[in-house]
């Protein structure tokens, strides 16, 4: 029986049917009809303090669960403020649906108050976007948006909703099916190709699994583990893939790339077969592309055909969902498992080589009894959270140290802005993750720069009593930029000293959030324990050594095996 209702009400009906429980948003003039529905509807709306953070919170929600995150903003400045969060979700393949208000259809194009061409602006920031011109199209569009956001290679979808469409009355009946004839998603990998992949794996002497965010998206972590164990292949995980193999798994080498370990990068350089799973050969992973994995044949599995051959030609492309492809591959590998012994001697030599690299230059955290080393901070967070916490990070040095030293044991426990590298991500993402997983410990590790981009959200945390632990890795600098100025611009430091950082204890008090500043290494463990034991939110300002740099480092444009392992050592003159 069709019901007569407003467009705004239809929107909420459709959201509920899509399983949405929580929306991160910020109201405004043209979204008033939607907020009037929220007024007495049990769907949860979380008021953030800036629209960008609504998008990041939706992203945190989606990254922590795999479900679609939803954010909502008004027209004009509301929608333009979402843009960074949309691009972030696009780069990291995160399923979010963004709802934006728009001026009435009759006013579109007239430079009306708070009008912006959201549909045009967000075209390149989204997987797909819509401008709803007629209320009768609204329900199908909402379901299409969720379908597009969550299937294939996930990504952000935006729906621009003019005010008159939200106000218009229409007959609503649930839309039972949608038709997107041009939306092609290939999930089942080509069987013949997968069979060839199995053969290439048995034929290889120095195989290396190179896995990333696609494993997390498709939930293929169990299959990944089975693969590396069956083949006994070493594995590296990208920044986006950390946790999809437990960090203490013997086959896990570490993260490769610009700040990857020596062993991971040497393995990449010397492998004769790369089994690339849900990765995109990002420049931060490959270093100089022409020198990347020069001896390797490449099996490239990805759900997005655009990724295959984009940066590195694949010797064996397989388009499909990582989980399904791996299941088929595992079946074929099991059937041919007798072949495993054929290259056993070479494989053992390969492992010996990798173990030697690991011993030669292990990733060792720096410690000091005079100052808190940021690596020490990460090691302590790792030890105290035991791989159980959802860790979010901002962007910069602290993000790299966290990636190097926190041992992630399962997927969806490490949330950071990988592709876009958006500062100000960590705290709103933690808000989203905490709403998604209310019983989980959520720790936001941020730098002093990114923290200052997110301070307004302390109000969101305080007003919702979210038990998020914010740890500021505070070196008083925009550390990664400072590191580059030091190493590549003759230490001519410009615009990187973050003077005027607020007193966090007073700031916390202003928001009613307990807070503490720690400066000495012997205080660190106790302070972290206090923070983690706090039932509510906690703000911990950890003053770390200001001039610590992230190593190893592959300078931009260098090959992976040309990494710099540590700061230049002072030359000792024998007496």
């Amino acid at each position, binding site marked *: 029986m069709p019901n007569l*209702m407003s467009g705004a*009400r239809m929107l909420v*009906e*459709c959201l*509920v*049917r*899509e*399983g949405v*429980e929580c929306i991160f948003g910020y109201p405004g003039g043209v979204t008033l009809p939607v907020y009037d529905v929220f*007024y*007495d*509807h*049990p*769907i949860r709306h979380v008021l953030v303090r800036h629209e960008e953070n609504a998008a990041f919170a939706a992203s945190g929600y989606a990254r922590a669960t795999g479900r679609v995150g939803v954010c909502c903003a008004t027209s004009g400045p509301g929608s333009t403020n979402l843009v960074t969060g949309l691009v972030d979700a696009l780069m990291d393949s995160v399923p979010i649906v963004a709802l934006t208000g728009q001026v009435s259809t009759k006013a579109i194009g007239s430079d009306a108050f708070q009008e912006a061409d959201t*549909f*045009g602006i967000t*075209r*390149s920031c989204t*997987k*797909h*976007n819509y*401008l709803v*011109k007629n209320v009768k199209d609204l*329900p199908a569009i909402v*379901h299409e948006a*969720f*379908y*597009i956001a969550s299937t294939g290679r996930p990504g952000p979808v935006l729906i621009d909703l003019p005010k008159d469409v939200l106000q218009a009355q229409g007959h609503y009946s*649930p*839309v*039972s*099916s*949608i*038709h*997107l*004839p*041009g*939306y*092609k*998603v290939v999930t089942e990998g080509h069987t013949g190709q997968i069979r060839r992949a199995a053969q290439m794996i048995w034929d290889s002497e120095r195989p290396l699994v190179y896995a990333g965010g696609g494993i997390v998206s498709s939930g293929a972590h169990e299959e990944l583990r089975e693969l590396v164990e069956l083949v006994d292949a070493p594995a590296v995980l990208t920044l986006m893939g950390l946790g999809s193999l437990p960090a203490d798994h013997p086959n896990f080498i570490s993260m490769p790339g610009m700040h990857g370990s020596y062993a991971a990068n040497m393995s990449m350089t010397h492998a004769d077969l790369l089994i690339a799973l849900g990765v995109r050969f990002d420049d931060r992973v490959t270093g100089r592309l022409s020198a990347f994995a020069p001896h390797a044949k490449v099996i490239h599995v990805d759900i*997005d*055909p*655009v990724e295959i*051959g*984009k940066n590195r030609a694949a010797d064996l492309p397989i388009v499909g969902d990582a989980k399904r492809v791996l299941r088929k591959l595992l079946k074929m590998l099991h059937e041919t498992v007798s072949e495993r012994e054929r290259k056993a001697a070479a494989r053992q030599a390969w492992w010996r080589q990798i173990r030697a690299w690991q011993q030669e230059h292990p990733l060792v955290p720096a410690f000091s009894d005079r100052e808190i080393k940021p690596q020490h901070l990460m090691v302590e967070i790792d030890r105290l959270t035991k791989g159980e916490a959802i860790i979010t990070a901002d962007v910069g040095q602290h993000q790299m140290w966290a990636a190097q030293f926190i041992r992630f044991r399962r997927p969806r426990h490490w949330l950071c802005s990988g592709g876009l590298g958006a500062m100000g991500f960590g705290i709103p993402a933690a808000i989203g993750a905490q709403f998604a997983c209310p019983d989980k410990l959520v720790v936001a590790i941020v730098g002093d720069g990114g923290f200052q981009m997110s301070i307004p959200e302390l109000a969101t945390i305080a007003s919702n009593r979210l038990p998020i632990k914010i740890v500021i890795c505070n070196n008083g600098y925009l550390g990664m930029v400072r590191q580059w100025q030091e190493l590549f611009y003759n230490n001519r430091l410009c615009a990187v000293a973050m003077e005027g950082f607020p007193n966090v204890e007073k700031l916390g008090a202003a928001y009613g959030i307990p807070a503490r500043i720690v400066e000495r290494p012997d205080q660190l463990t106790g302070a972290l324990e206090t923070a983690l034991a706090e039932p509510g939110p906690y703000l911990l300002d950890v003053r770390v050594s200001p001039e610590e740099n992230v190593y190893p480092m592959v300078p931009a444009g260098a090959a992976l095996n040309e990494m710099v392992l540590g700061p230049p050592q002072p030359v000792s003159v024998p007496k």
Partner: protein
Amino acid sequence: MLQVISLLVENKPGALMRITGVLSARGYNIESLTVARTLDPTLSRMTIVVDVDPALRRQVIKQMNRLINVLQASDLTEERAVAREMVLLRVRAPLESRTAILKEAEIFSARVVDSSVEGFVLEASGDPEKLDEFIDVMRAYGEIEVTRSGIVAVSLESRRLRLSPPVPTRAGSEPADSRLLDVPSS
């Protein structure tokens, strides 16, 4: 190198913008672009000619195929295909050269679509290179004004159109929290 791309596209607002966006994001300049409805009025056929680094041709096609409004994108550059273009050309024709112009037009199978004391408007269609020659010849008769349609192209090989079938929505399924459904409107 010029790439000829043929696209079958849903006739929806923004579809053209998405397609040209794939090209403009890489800084490619479009040489020509034609769009018109197909027999099915919900669909459009586009032919785009664009100067693309040969190594990236496949990538461009894949990026276009990724667009939700694109039903099919194909590269006709090295396929067996026919490409045609139309030109409308205004040429000043004083009395002494009118006969010669008409003779030249006939050689190129061009038609006179307007004739006045000042001159002719000629319509020619065919192979784009042939039209280049036609324009060159006409230039010899003095001032001309030219409007070209851009290339329309068709593959000589029929290719199967693979479309995705309709999919059920979650509208019929129970939401995680049923309290959220059937809330009376205020």
